[in-house]
């Protein structure tokens, strides 16, 4: 397989399959949860406006001061790699072009025509820096997972595999940008795209799904606790 055919495969059928598995898998897992019954709570609420408990979605984004000492490292590193990853994903020029193409391909509309503005981008150097910081934070959390007795005990295949598939697009993206190792650019780019596709395929099956469940899970706890006036 030449580097060009590999790239065509990554951009063509592999992408189609990856997106299909991602969408179907996410929907299957979410529907599998949401279709379960829920019982009405018949106790007299302390606070009837249980929706106010949804503020827990925001509140739980940072630990209470009582818990900060032991969790600050995880929080800071977690935010660093999440933000770096998302900024690189959403604001790198080639990614934006890809999303605009995808948007047009799926819906038949031009993004800027529909929303009245063009998708913003950031300079490639800035993205590269953020990606490097993000990757460094990911490496730090991996070391922490391997050395911290609590995290080492509770970790399983999902934790390490999800880590690998999250770090891979950052690493391969930076390699592609740097035209590293004298490899043909098509090969580097294809590797990057394939790494993203691997991430998409694994996404619905492992812990990466927390991207979809986190807000609902926090919201559920918030509403149940708010009803009782319990601590949030």
């Amino acid at each position, binding site marked *: 397989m030449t580097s060009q055919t590999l790239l065509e495969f990554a951009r063509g059928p592999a992408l189609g399959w990856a997106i299909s598995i991602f969408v179907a898998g996410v929907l299957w897992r979410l529907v599998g949860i949401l279709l379960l019954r829920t019982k009405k709570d*018949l106790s007299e609420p302390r606070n009837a406006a249980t929706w106010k408990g949804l503020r827990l979605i925001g509140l739980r984004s940072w630990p209470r001061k009582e*818990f900060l000492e032991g969790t600050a490292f*995880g929080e800071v590193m977690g935010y660093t790699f999440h933000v770096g990853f998302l900024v690189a994903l959403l604001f790198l020029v080639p990614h934006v072009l890809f999303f605009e193409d995808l948007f047009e391909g799926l819906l038949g509309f031009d993004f800027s025509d529909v929303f009245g503005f063009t998708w913003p981008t950031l300079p490639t150097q800035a993205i590269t820096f953020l990606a490097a910081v993000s990757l460094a934070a990911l490496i730090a959390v991996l070391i922490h997972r391997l050395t911290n007795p609590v995290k080492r005990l509770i970790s399983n295949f999902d934790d390490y595999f999800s880590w690998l598939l999250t770090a891979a697009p950052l690493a391969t993206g930076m390699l592609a940008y740097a035209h590293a190792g004298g490899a043909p650019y098509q090969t580097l780019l294809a590797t990057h795209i394939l790494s993203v596709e691997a991430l998409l395929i694994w996404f619905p099956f492992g812990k990466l799904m927390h991207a979809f469940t986190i807000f609902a*899970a926090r919201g559920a706890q918030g509403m149940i606790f708010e009803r*009782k*006036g*319990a601590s949030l």
Partner: protein
Amino acid sequence: MSTATQARFDKQGDMPDAERVDKAMRNFVKDFGRTAALWMESCIHCGMCAEACHFYEATKDPKYTPIWKLEPFKQAYKREYGPFALVYRTLNLKPKVTIEELEQWQELLYDSCTVCGRCSLMCPMGIDIASLISQARHGMFHAGLVPHALYTVTERGHREGSPLGATPKVFKDRVEWLADDHEVEMPLDKAQADVLCTMSSIEIMKYPDSVVATARIMNHLGLDWTFRTDGYEATNFGLLSGNAAWQKEMTLKLINAAIACGAKTLILPECGHAYTALRWMGANMYGKPLPFRVLHMSEFLAESVQSGRLKLKKVSKSATFHDPCQVSRRGGATEAPRVVLEALGVDLHEMFPTKGTNWCCGGGGGVVANPRANDLRHKVFKIKMEQIDETGAELPVTSCANCRQTFDDGQAHFKWDKEMHSLLELVADNLIEEAR
């Protein structure tokens, strides 16, 4: 999966191991709804819940990480019941849970968890780990995998109506004796009453002054109240050990007694889990909203203070309040005891942390009824002693007889110079008689 030390476990019955595993898992998911499933699907193994757990804090043993206490159940959920169960099972991505694992996990689910819910406040995913522990205990109970001591008191509660032997006859005798001895009127089995007062086993058998204090306060306020022998025992070991049917049975006794005497209010004693069992789970057990109000004793006292009906002498001492987890953190009645303490005029020195994030005493969730957990519980209790000593307060006060018992035991074990006091008894001792 393995735990660092050798497991200690007990077994009830003689069912085959495969049946135990099957029953554990079936009963774990029996009442599984959307929310519990959402929580089971959301853990990212960040391990932060460990930082909130007093058992981890006291020992630094990673096996006490709260979410780890659910590991076999998480594994079984994914393999047997989750949206991708077929994939997990077919490819054997999650191995079948074994009886050995469940035996090992008995200690983690019963000896080293008070269901205090502090971890639930830490979880960045918003998983209510404590409620999942309770679900797991349902599985363990039906598999006959409960610590013997806890099983024994639970079974006794089911058989005799009280886990500590406070049968209706014993309760009647004690009420009559206390009424005579303390010269206080204690109405029993009134056919009609506005208020039904209930007690916990620990109070009836170990802290009878709380029974007297309850009567004194009710009489002082001039209320139409009663104790009833068909519904007095608020302790609910069905909830603690994981037998929902027995939990319901105990709960319905209280509900039916309140309905029988036309009570408008049922007052729960100074007991943490009794509050969860009736205030928050009672109507769901009953199948419809309760036709009466349910108040924890501290809430009732606070309401009486705030309405101006209850006037108290000033206690010229400094005090600190230990929040019972089920009443404060998980029950929402956090400010009520502080209203009462303010009326008592004490100089309140709050602990750090306090209120919703206060440390548990280590004896809740049935742990204090499980002697094999004593060594571990004492380690945990050191956190509490340090916390209280740091306040410099003269009077440690709480509003849970189970916490009080844990404190009394810790005090004796460590020869600590602090004695826990009951908010209820403190109020009864400081009533202004002329306020009638």
